[in-house]
């Protein structure tokens, strides 16, 4: 963990002015009160490009306090360039403590993953969302999809999933897999792999979703029921990997495929870098690091 520092001068705490943060907090409160419902908010132009996580950044800026400990991940990793850049932004503008350890963080901002280590009460997970509307690719018009949500009219989505099964034998959605929240709103979980979907269900952590360009915030309060859409005869299936992580030997983690040569060589390693490092420190060893060392046994 890196200790708090003095924030940069000339800007409000965490960049946004107090009125803007208050406006965002109001939207967050409404979103928490209506789980899975998309609340419009007056997203600001941020100093990062749209598509780089401006929604998540605004949500984080609005909820961050001086005592918070922030972790930022992209593709599950703390050291991807965009995660590094966002973490540095909040270090500079809010001076908060930062960490790569999931267990130490009070706020985790993420793009495309949910940490492997189960989140606990008191933690907040902030998702960066590109397209908040789960029905957008079935119906491009906001005026139409708004009515569909209001009437809980999700027939179009079920037809789409059914057509997938008829064509491919499977629901051909591997990420941004739609979920139903508390039996009411169909929600886009952001482009996390469907492997991560079950982690949203009954999580003790607060989950907030921010879409900057589309100007929407939505939320899952702690202990919310979240069900991935499926059919009785085609139940939701989590993606499974055939090999364990080559570094830490994990068999229950989401893996990145790494091309290691031009002769078809591949290795699979944990996408969650903190999870992988923690396991290695605990003595777990994958195929590439050899067997578990003697001193780590017992």
């Amino acid at each position, binding site marked *: 963990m890196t200790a708090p520092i003095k924030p940069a001068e000339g800007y409000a705490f965490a960049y946004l002015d107090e009125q803007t943060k208050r406006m965002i907090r109001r939207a967050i409160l409404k979103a928490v009160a209506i789980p899975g419902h998309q609340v419009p*908010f007056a*997203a600001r132009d941020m100093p990062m490009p749209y598509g780089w996580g401006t929604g998540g950044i605004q949500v984080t800026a609005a909820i961050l306090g001086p005592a918070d400990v922030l972790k930022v991940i992209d593709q599950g990793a703390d050291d*991807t360039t965009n995660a590094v850049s966002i973490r540095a932004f909040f270090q500079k503008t809010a001076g908060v403590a930062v960490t790569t350890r999931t267990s130490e963080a009070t706020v985790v901002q993420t793009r*495309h993953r949910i940490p492997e280590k189960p989140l606990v009460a008191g933690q907040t997970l902030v998702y960066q969302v590109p397209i908040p509307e789960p029905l957008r690719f079935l119906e*491009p018009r906001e005026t139409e999809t708004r009515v569909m949500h209001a009437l809980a009219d999700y027939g179009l989505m079920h037809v789409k999933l059914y057509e997938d099964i008829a064509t491919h034998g499977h629901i051909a959605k*591997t990420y941004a897999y739609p979920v139903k929240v508390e039996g009411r709103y169909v929600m886009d979980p952001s*482009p996390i792999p469907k492997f991560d979907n079950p982690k949203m269900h009954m999580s003790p952590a607060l989950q907030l979703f921010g879409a900057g360009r589309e100007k929407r915030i939505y939320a899952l309060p702690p202990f919310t029921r979240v069900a991935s859409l499926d059919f009785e005869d085609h139940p939701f299936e989590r993606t499974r990997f055939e090999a364990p992580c080559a570094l830490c030997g994990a068999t229950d983690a*989401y893996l990145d495929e790494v091309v290691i040569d031009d002769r078809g060589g591949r290795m699979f390693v944990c996408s969650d870098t903190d999870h992988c490092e923690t396991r290695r420190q605990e003595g777990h060893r994958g195929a590439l690091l050899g067997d578990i060392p003697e001193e780590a046994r017992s």
Partner: protein
Amino acid sequence: MYVSVKGGEKAIRAAHRLLAHRRRGDRAVPEVAADQIREQLTLAVDRVMNEGSLYDRDLAALAIKQARGDLIEAAFLVRAYRTTLPRFGCSTPLDTAAMSVDRRISATYKDLPGGQILGPTFDYTHRLIDFALMADSETPLPEREREPGPAAASAMPRVTDLLGDEGLIEAEPAAADGAEPGDLTRAPLRVPAARDLRLQQLARGDEGFLLALGYSTQRGYGSTHPFAGEIRIGEVEVEFEVPELGFVVPLGSVALSECQMINQFAGSAEIEPTFTRGYGLAFGQVERKVMAMALVDRALRTEELGGEATHPAQDQEFVLSHADNVQATGFVEHLKLPHYVDFQAELALVRQLRREHTAARAARDAQSDDVYEEAAQ
């Protein structure tokens, strides 16, 4: 071992330093100064002020320098700076009839009160590269018959007002008392949006996008039969009512371009046929932008005027959702951020589908072999 694109802080720092170096270019050539950009690349500055939604020539010029001449990047820098500024309120409506005019033309009347003033325009230049500009040379001062200055509104009335006096063009609805226009940078845009918000989005919108949309209406995708009633460019005084004072104070003036398009008729059994309006207004000298904006504004009014919106330029959701180039460039360019988690999931599925496909074909082939064997027997 595990070497990947995961870069980190060191790479970012080095990339930024290289970027600054490339921006500077050949160090044997003098560095361009922001005030040179402000004074000599004025039309680029105007575009950045519009798409950056902030009237500040110095800041826009500096942004152009910092962005290495990439005008969308410059607008983005201005927008991010604008976010940090407080909003004090909104001015009283600008009176463009009282504009200190630099240029004013009408395509609908040969002559009209106040006359046609050509002003600084490329319109009748021959587009021949002027190699004399390569050398240092003195540019002669302009000849003027009269110095531009604030004219009485009656001296140069707006063309639409001349038509309006005869009732030939639809009246502009009066604003409700005390009603402030909306601001889509302070409240999320919901469609259908009222005309004030639509015009705001068009004024901030990408010039190229508006140009293509306006052009499409001229080529049959939602024709509005437009005439350029009037284009005027010049300085307009901005006045602000300070609640604490209770009276209006002038804040200074802004350079504006305004285009009033006169379009074909609307009318009904009750209402006599009249011309309809399309309106464009933006900072600086941005004639192409305001003309395109006026075409698109009119196209977006199709349903309100009793037509059916069937073409892209008439479709509010389509136009308003895609006009903002800072948003558009962000989302298009974010595709270069890592997506390997999602791609991994797709990879696994396509491999599974291919396996099943092969197995199914093998089973089918085996079955048809049996059929052939049976037939042979």
